[in-house]
């Protein structure tokens, strides 16, 4: 029996096991929206296409499955761009489906036509314009395969309207054939042998873990490997939740707002083992002074990440799970040498402990004003271990990374690579849709919140009980901090002059609003929010000019930190 293009698309989604999609209708996807009601696919209508893409992203980051978003052509498609770029930078598996004007009109500046393939070429792992209905199911199959394999990423399918209404026989291909795409999963045995020797020879090793560990679901393997070598573990913003932050070997985050001891450990190490990380400039600071005494082993699924920014002594391309396991086996086969290495690095561990005790992470507590870090600590205290935390971008994001002590993988959703304000709330929509029973909390700033606050409507409509914690400093705080430190305190356009009544805003959407203005109210407000069914917005009036510390000024070496006074 023949099916229409829009039915074929939906059949394909079903074949891929898609249960939830996020989107927004319009003229060139109206057929898909007409047909979707016939399929067991839950559609969540966000209030903006950017939010639909972030929601699909949140769904993907929490579940590890491919997130799916749908938008109409023209403005719908352009609205997806920030969401796609966010997912691309953080390697999130997604398929974005955009409607397109009918094929005969393409190139004519038709109503709501944009060249979304051209626009998204550099922010997708791959993209497709479907030109013939006969190609549709093959393209969808390939799109999902490309999105989730290798280094994951977003794939866009641009589907012209005439192809949605045309009809053809539906057959879902069994295999994907892409002669140009064959990710390397298995680490090269000789390289791993060399790596094992380098590890056994080291006395000051550090594991530097990035978002790839989450993408590869390699947390357990990482923990086993770390414990075997006793090497301290520092993580990037993207890698935080893949290693339990209360583990004695955890050093927290490195880089611009990293801990003193993580940055000192990297600077003084003799062997840096990079695991699914890409030496971002926010991590390395001044490249020439980054890990100057260390040999570098770089393990990554994506060969282009290796030797892009820093010299690497030993590259290993492969799946982190596979490589960490095999390295563990190789070390396990030399118990005496391993014991010698672990014993031999005892002095190193003492050195690190000394840095930890001389410069612990902390902040000036107060009993008269709410310290933003205190709110984060209280949130950790009062939420479940498996609570999913999303953030926006700014100081609140860094404090979350510094003080939340993540303990489970896929519980920290934040825009690391692109740094997209407005990410957290829609990402929470996606996370909560994936896990209706878990606690999902968006830790937000007053500035960022206003970038996608319309998603309060989505929460209320779908009864998604997301809790929002706004750390309100009435500032674009992170930019203000830079102005304070590097621009003579000229707070140009970073003061949010208009005080918003966030509680009333929540209520206007039919959500609950709560406010804390004094430290003793913080715990109470959080408890109440967690006990209240449905979405709740908590506003915390925090110390306005608190800064994120330590801080490595842009361009400085990471051991040249400005520390809290």
């Amino acid at each position, binding site marked *: 029996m023949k099916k229409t293009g829009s039915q074929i698309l939906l059949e394909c989604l079903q074949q891929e096991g898609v249960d939830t999609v996020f989107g927004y209708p319009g003229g060139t996807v109206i057929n898909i929206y007409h047909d979707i009601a016939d399929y067991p696919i839950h559609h969540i209508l966000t209030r903006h296409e950017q939010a639909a893409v972030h929601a699909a992203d949140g769904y993907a980051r929490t579940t590890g499955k491919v997130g799916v978003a749908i938008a109409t052509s023209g403005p719908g498609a352009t609205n997806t761009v920030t969401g796609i770029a966010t997912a691309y930078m953080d390697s999130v598996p997604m398929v974005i489906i955009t409607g397109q004007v009918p094929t005969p009109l393409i190139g004519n500046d038709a109503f709501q036509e944009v060249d979304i393939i051209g626009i998204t070429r550099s922010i997708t*792992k791959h993209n497709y*314009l479907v*030109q013939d209905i006969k190609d549709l199911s093959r393209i969808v199959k390939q799109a999902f395969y490309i999105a989730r394999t290798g280094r994951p990423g977003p794939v866009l399918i641009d589907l012209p309207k005439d192809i949605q209404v045309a009809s053809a026989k539906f057959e879902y291909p069994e295999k994907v054939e892409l002669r140009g795409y064959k990710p390397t999963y298995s680490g090269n045995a000789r390289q791993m042998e060399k790596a094992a020797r380098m590890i056994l020879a080291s006395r000051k090793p550090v594991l530097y873990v990035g978002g790839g560990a989450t993408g590869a679901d390699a947390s357990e393997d990482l923990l086993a490997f770390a414990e075997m070598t006793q090497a301290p573990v520092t993580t990037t913003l993207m890698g935080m939740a893949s290693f339990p932050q209360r583990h004695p070997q955890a050093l927290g985050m490195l880089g611009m707002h990293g801990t003193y001891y993580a940055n000192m450990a990297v600077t003084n190490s003799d062997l840096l083992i990079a695991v699914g990380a890409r030496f971002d400039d926010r991590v390395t600071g001044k490249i020439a002074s980054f890990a100057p005494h260390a040999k570098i082993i770089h393990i990554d699924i*994506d*060969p282009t990440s290796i030797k*892009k920014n820093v010299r690497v002594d030993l590259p290993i391309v492969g799946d982190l799970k596979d490589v960490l396991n095999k390295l563990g086996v190789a070390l396990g086969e030399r118990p005496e040498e391993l014991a010698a290495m672990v014993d031999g690095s005892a002095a190193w561990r003492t050195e690190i402990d000394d840095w930890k005790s001389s410069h612990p992470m902390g902040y000036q507590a107060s009993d008269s004003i709410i310290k933003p870090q205190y709110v984060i600590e209280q949130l950790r205290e009062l939420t479940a271990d498996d609570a999913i935390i999303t953030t926006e971008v700014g100081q609140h994001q860094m404090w979350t990374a510094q003080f939340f002590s993540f303990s489970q993988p896929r519980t920290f959703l934040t825009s690391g690579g692109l740094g997209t304000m407005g990410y957290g709330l829609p990402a929470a929509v996606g996370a909560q849709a994936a896990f209706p029973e878990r606690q999902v909390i968006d830790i937000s700033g007053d500035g960022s919140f206003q970038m996608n606050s319309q998603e309060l409507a989505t929460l209320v409509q779908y009864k998604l009980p997301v809790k929002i914690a706004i750390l309100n400093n009435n500032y674009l705080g992170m930019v203000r901090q830079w102005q304070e430190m590097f621009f003579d305190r000229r707070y140009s356009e970073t003061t949010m002059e208009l005080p918003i009544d966030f509680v009333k805003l929540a209520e206007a959407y039919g959500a609950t609003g709560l406010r804390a203005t004094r430290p003793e109210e913080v715990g109470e407000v959080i408890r109440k929010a967690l006990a209240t069914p449905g979405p709740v917005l908590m506003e915390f009036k925090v110390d306005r000019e608190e800064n994120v510390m330590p801080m490595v000024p842009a361009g400085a070496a990471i051991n040249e930190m400005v520390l809290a006074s």
Partner: protein
Amino acid sequence: MKHTISVLVENEFGVLTRVAGLFSGRGFNIESLSVAPTLDPSVSRMTIVTRGDDRILEQINKQLNKLIDTIKVTDFTGQDYVEREMALVKVAAEEETRAEVLRIVDIFRAKVVDVTPRSYTLEVTGVPTKLDAVIDLLKPMGIKELVRSGPIVIGRGQ
């Protein structure tokens, strides 16, 4: 250093823009680029001449390989290969220079492919440096138009 890279790609919609966009987006330079289908019409070959140090070339190589439509990347630098480029040169041919133009044609085994009362159009094939030499010699006669194909290369032996 100059590198000549041969890239086999799927002959798909938009593949040229993907490759060109990769170079411009990452700040790699392209000196020349030529594209045509291979014996297998589903595959095209691009020959790209670029410049960069080892680190940049390694990135170019890896980034090209990362494109889904890329089937194979070969950097011919340091390998044994045959390189050819073609130029079409429209050169002024006045009474007093006609003979000289033909002499150059002869020496470099070029061909006259079009003649008008005031110009010759020459076809010159060879390695790029040979083309440079011919063009230099023709310049004093007055080159009206010059079209170069960019080099193409093929490995020696099997």
